[in-house]
């Protein structure tokens, strides 16, 4: 049924699952961004709901804890009039030894139409997508270090909202690229949408080896990496990374790679600052910048709902 080269697309080349942005045609990304634009209007109305997914059951399957992503998916599904069932699997069946596929088979037997999957293991949403019935759609809400496609898309929506066009932009992604599924999705999306210069900025220990193969420019000096950029995309430094040998201390990291007003001044004066949240203030970003005029961190959250509404409604209709 599916084209073997991209398990997300159906025989007509339409999006059936959203597992990763890698390899998707530009037209599909643009369709998602355009559709989300129409949903932004819906979320500003008196009645913030449309009847598109009325009668459909959306299961939030979170094998790894998350508040923001799960909540925005839940809001998005409810605004499409779907019924939403939230399952935090780490505290239910998984601890009793049930396999992912058994869990999913049981939920499918409850007439699920869509699974939103977050899992610590890269590839788990692919595994589920391969085994569910043909009419069920799977959305990756973050898997291991692999991908977080809806985060990548909402970042692209935010950039387009403020910068209008991708084709003249210089974009810097700063921080722990090595462990970041967000960074991978951002790099794929920026390339597909035609951003001519993508930079990754961070210490050697937190950048993947051979990251240049993804078509990005590598900087270890933040001052050089931020010079004249239009967009600064900060990554979250996960606390568990600070305990290993990768980093000396949070203070030391902040000194070299924390985004301060001084460092941001090296970017273009109209540069915008993004962060996927939750932020570690004083570690990867200074509060003055996080709450400053160039920060678009809260609009990102709002746009995230419209993006998730767009993805769900496009998948459900394909």
């Amino acid at each position, binding site marked *: 049924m599916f084209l073997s080269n991209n398990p997300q697309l159906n025989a007509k080349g339409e999006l059936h699952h959203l597992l990763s942005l890698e390899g998707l045609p530009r037209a599909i990304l643009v369709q998602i961004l355009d559709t989300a634009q129409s949903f932004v209007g819906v979320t500003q109305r*008196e009645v913030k709901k449309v009847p598109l997914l009325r009668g459909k059951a959306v299961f939030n399957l979170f094998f790894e804890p998350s508040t923001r992503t799960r909540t925005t998916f839940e809001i998005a599904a409810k605004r499409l009039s779907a019924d939403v069932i939230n399952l935090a699997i780490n505290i239910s069946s998984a601890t009793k030894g049930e396999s992912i596929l058994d869990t999913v088979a049981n939920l499918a037997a409850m007439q699920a139409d869509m699974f939103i999957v977050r899992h610590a293991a890269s590839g788990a949403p692919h595994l589920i997508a391969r085994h569910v019935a043909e009419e069920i759609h799977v959305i990756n809400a973050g898997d291991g270090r692999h991908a977080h496609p809806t985060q990548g898309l909402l970042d692209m929506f935010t950039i387009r909202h403020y910068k209008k066009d991708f084709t003249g932009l210089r974009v810097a992604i700063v921080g722990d690229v090595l462990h970041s599924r967000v960074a991978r999705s951002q790099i794929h999306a920026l390339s597909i949408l035609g951003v001519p210069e993508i930079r990754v900025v961070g210490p050697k220990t937190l950048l993947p080896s051979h990251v240049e193969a993804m078509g990005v420019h590598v900087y270890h000096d933040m001052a050089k990496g931020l010079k004249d950029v239009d967009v600064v995309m900060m990554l979250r430094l996960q606390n568990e990374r600070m305990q290993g040998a990768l980093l000396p201390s949070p203070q030391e990291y902040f000194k070299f790679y924390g985004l301060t007003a001084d460092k941001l001044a090296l970017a273009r004066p109209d540069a915008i600052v993004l962060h996927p949240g939750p932020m570690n203030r004083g570690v990867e970003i200074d509060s003055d910048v996080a709450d400053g005029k160039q920060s678009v961190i809260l609009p990102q959250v709002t746009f995230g709902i419209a993006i998730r509404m767009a993805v769900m409604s496009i998948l*459900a*209709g394909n």
Partner: protein
Amino acid sequence: MTTTLPDAEGLLADLIAQMRPALTPETALVGIRTGGLWIAERVHAALGLKTPCGALDVSFYRDDFDKIGLHREVKPTEIPFDVEGREVVVVDDVLYTGRTIRAAMNVLFDYGRPKSIRLAALVDRGGRELPIAPQFLAATVTLAAGESLELTRDASGRLALHVHKS
């Protein structure tokens, strides 16, 4: 058999003449994208209405979503006035099954409770599947089986009707 079509600009003048005595400056026009919006904008200018013209996209309210999915090019719905208590006229180019009008009314009700909704259409091609009728209508056209009507607008803004055969 080929259907002979009336001139769209002439029909628009008829429609404006019908609407002129029935509308107040506070009446709000809402055009259904894309053809209905073209007509609504022309009527709005000709009658000098005070309330800004609204634009409606019914993609999120269609009843055939399960069959054909989401429309490829969804455009934002823009209602630049308070619907609550307002006299509204929904404007469309070609009236057919009535399903688009049903969807348009549902969109409006999610913005508020209008005082009334009337319907203006350039052409009625018959084939209604819902109990919907226009209050303002310029022409009725009989089409052969397999034919459909399309309104176009050229660079100068001139409207024209075309028949397509499937």
